[in-house]
């Protein structure tokens, strides 16, 4: 109610003092001294010369992607590294956005989402999982799933909280957890099937664990968490009172297994934040329409962070997204069919070219072992691949806390048109040589 008065500034200050432990910005200045002198404060404005490991990795990752992109352009390489399509989204969704713009829907939307979109998200979630959620109290729209992840971490994680993530992981989980000051525990999923290491997980979850981050279908491996795995994680979470955050942006790109939402398991909805977006499903990655579905008490914290991160989400795109989510089943069937064809082209090609190809059940990624070609690590192999073969892949070591763990793997994407995929495959078959 607007009639409620705000707390006084002293309340703000005591709230701030209650926040314990060190919280680091992703690139934070290193000084922890109080009452620093002017010269020392000047120092604080510089980037730290010796940042803690997580921040070092941040800088490393940015450099790798930039280097790869620059190399790719220089050598005219076919880019199977970037995780976004080189084809466009469906006309009916684009038309809906155009309509919205023309109809003047260009001003601030309600902070937590245009009502039609919230309803469409709830309806879609019910169709997919059977769960009924309140669009007003349990659905929040964000600028892409990227923002949903950031708002989850900043809104629900305290500095010092232990959070478990599975490596290899999409880089923003770790970055936002660092921003939130969390203690990150990484559990590695290993080839060939990237199964959840049960014993390792059991010993990692303790009474201090605040949350577990699950990405299924999984980027970069394409793994899909099985019902068994999810049930195991669920029982551990219930036993230890742990939250679960799920990133399900590839849920409509589930090829060889059924996609299961953790929130639909018994006892789990009340402790789960389920995140998704339209970007991958509708090949409109630049529109930045994502969302989180969570019970009201978790939604509240999420919305706090969201309201200060971006305040509101792009209005015309929200209208278009509400249309998109009502797409008939045929749209999703065709999507899967098209992607299956692309996957076939890539996977066959990678095998023929000499990679060890790990089965990918979902997403539009495949990871392969490049070691048959004799390069000492994934970065070196990727550089060779760009320079001599003319194809871009992503070195997966950037998706681990310890880069050593990923040095044998590289990630390819098949979210490209068939001609591009065939051309890339041809280059690899012809030019890839063992060292």
């Amino acid at each position: 109610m607007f009639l409620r008065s705000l707390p006084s500034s002293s309340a703000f200050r005591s709230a701030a003092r209650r926040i314990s432990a060190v919280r680091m910005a992703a690139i934070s200045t290193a000084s922890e001294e109080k009452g620093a002198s002017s010269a020392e404060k000047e120092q604080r404005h510089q980037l730290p010369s010796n940042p803690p490991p997580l921040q070092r990795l941040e800088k490393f990752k940015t450099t790798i992607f930039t280097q790869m992109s620059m190399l790719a352009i220089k050598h005219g390489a076919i880019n199977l590294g970037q995780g976004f399509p080189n084809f466009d989204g469906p006309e009916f969704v684009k038309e809906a956005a155009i309509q919205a713009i023309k109809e003047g829907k260009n001003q601030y939307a309600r902070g937590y989402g245009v009502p039609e979109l919230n309803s469409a998200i709830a309806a879609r979630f019910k169709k997919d999982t059977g769960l009924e959620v309140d669009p007003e109290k349990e659905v929040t729209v964000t600028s892409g799933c990227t923002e949903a992840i950031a708002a989850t971490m900043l809104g629900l994680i305290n500095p010092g909280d232990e959070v478990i993530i599975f490596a290899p992981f999409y880089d923003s989980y770790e970055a936002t957890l660092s921003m939130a000051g969390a203690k990150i525990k990484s559990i590695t999923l290993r080839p060939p099937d990237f199964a959840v290491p049960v014993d390792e997980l059991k010993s990692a979850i303790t009474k201090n664990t605040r949350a577990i981050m699950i990405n299924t279908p999984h980027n970069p491996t394409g793994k899909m968490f099985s019902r068994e795995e999810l049930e195991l994680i669920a029982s551990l979470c219930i036993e230890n009172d742990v939250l679960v955050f799920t990133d399900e942006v590839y849920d409509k790109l589930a090829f060889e297994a059924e996609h299961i939402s953790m929130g639909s398991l018994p006892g789990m909805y009340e402790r789960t934040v389920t995140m998704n977006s339209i970007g991958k499903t509708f090949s409109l990655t630049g529109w930045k329409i994502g969302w989180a579905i969570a019970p009201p008490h978790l939604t509240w914290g999420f919305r706090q962070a969201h309201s200060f991160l971006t305040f509101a989400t792009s209005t015309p795109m929200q209208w278009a997204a509400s249309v998109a989510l009502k797409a008939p089943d045929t749209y999703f069937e065709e999507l899967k069919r098209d992607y299956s064809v692309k996957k076939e082209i890539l996977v066959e090609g990678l095998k023929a070219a000499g990679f060890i190809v790990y089965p990918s059940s979902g997403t539009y990624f495949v990871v392969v072992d490049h070691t048959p070609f004799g390069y000492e690590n994934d970065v070196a192999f990727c550089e060779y691949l760009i320079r001599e073969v003319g194809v871009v892949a992503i070195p997966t070591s950037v998706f681990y806390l310890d880069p050593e763990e990923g040095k044998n793997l590289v990630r390819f994407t098949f979210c490209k048109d068939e001609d591009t995929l065939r051309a890339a495959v041809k280059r690899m078959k012809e030019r890839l040589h063992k060292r």
Partner: protein
Amino acid sequence: MELKLSKASRSLTPSPIQELSHLAQRCGAINLAEGFPDFSAPPHIKSAAVAAINADLNQYRHVQGICDQLAVMMKQNHGLDVNALTDFVICCGQSEAFAATILATIDQGDEVLLFDPAYETYASCIILAGGIPVNVPLEPPHWTLNVDKFMKSFTSRTKAVVLNSPHNPTGKVFSKEELEAIAAACCQMDCLAITDEVYEYITFDLQKHISLASLPKMQERTIITSSLSKTFSVTGWRIGWACAPSTIASAIRNIHIHVTDSAPSPFQEAALAALQSPPGYFKSLKAEYEARRDFVIQMLSDVGFQISFKPQGSVFVFAELPKNWLVSDIEFVKILIEKAGVAAVPGRGFFHGDIDDQNLRTRYVRFAFCKGSDTLNAAAQKLRDIVGSTGHLQL
């Protein structure tokens, strides 16, 4: 389960501005509360967005052209030389640019000076980052900067000063002298300055918006944030930016990449068309808003307000309730919605610091005039309808 919330989020309360908007909607009130236009965005900009969608520019993008154009404008408008390749971060609105800036620069325990009254989001953002907002009251009735009080607000923990000019809610445009004082303080205390310049093109009476970064020795320590929203009446497009020296911009970019990664791509393309609008566009924008300002001031005066401070910029009038109206800001707004069907914002939500006269915090109401003439005329009529025999509102 409430304990699962982060301490930071639990200390914050929902935005009264947004809640008020819901109430106004429920009552069907004429909305002079929220700061977004009810008139159309300029046609040439909408067309550019439509063209971008049709041209398949719908995947993750960074449109360098925006930075190039902004660099040109910074030079033209403020004499600033910025590097288009390294000094800009395109974000989802000024909101995200500000949040990313705070997250990139504010550590646990850092103090950040804010001028009060203030847009409420700044303090909340700072708290979320573990910082401590410190409020420096501007002095009514003209919201002048008391340099003494300002200097006394600095401590060794002060990391940054936030400057919003033209100012929400008061409509103040900080003068050259005030900016010089702020600049001198920032240099002397070796602090950052973070500006919110979203109303930069909406100034009146030949008042020129001066960017703090253009003052001597300020560029190296200033982060400018702004957006398309108010200048081009597209508050729902979420295209904003931060501009800072490259090291700082790089840190902001790293945060932004993990907060949203990319601003909506078709609107980035449209931003190019917007920013390349001819000088005539900006002239009309000013003239039209000045006319609206004058209209609303007249409207309020006609019903008994004594407007002692005419806004010099922004889209708001921060009107003081006359002393003989024995109602608080909240009571007044409620009466206005219920009796006249016109919504405004109670001013107390903007006051965070200890202002000298505690009563003042309940004596102001903010009216937005970013509304079409139909709306403003209708509002004026509604207000006239409820005045008493004195010709003024009776409260």
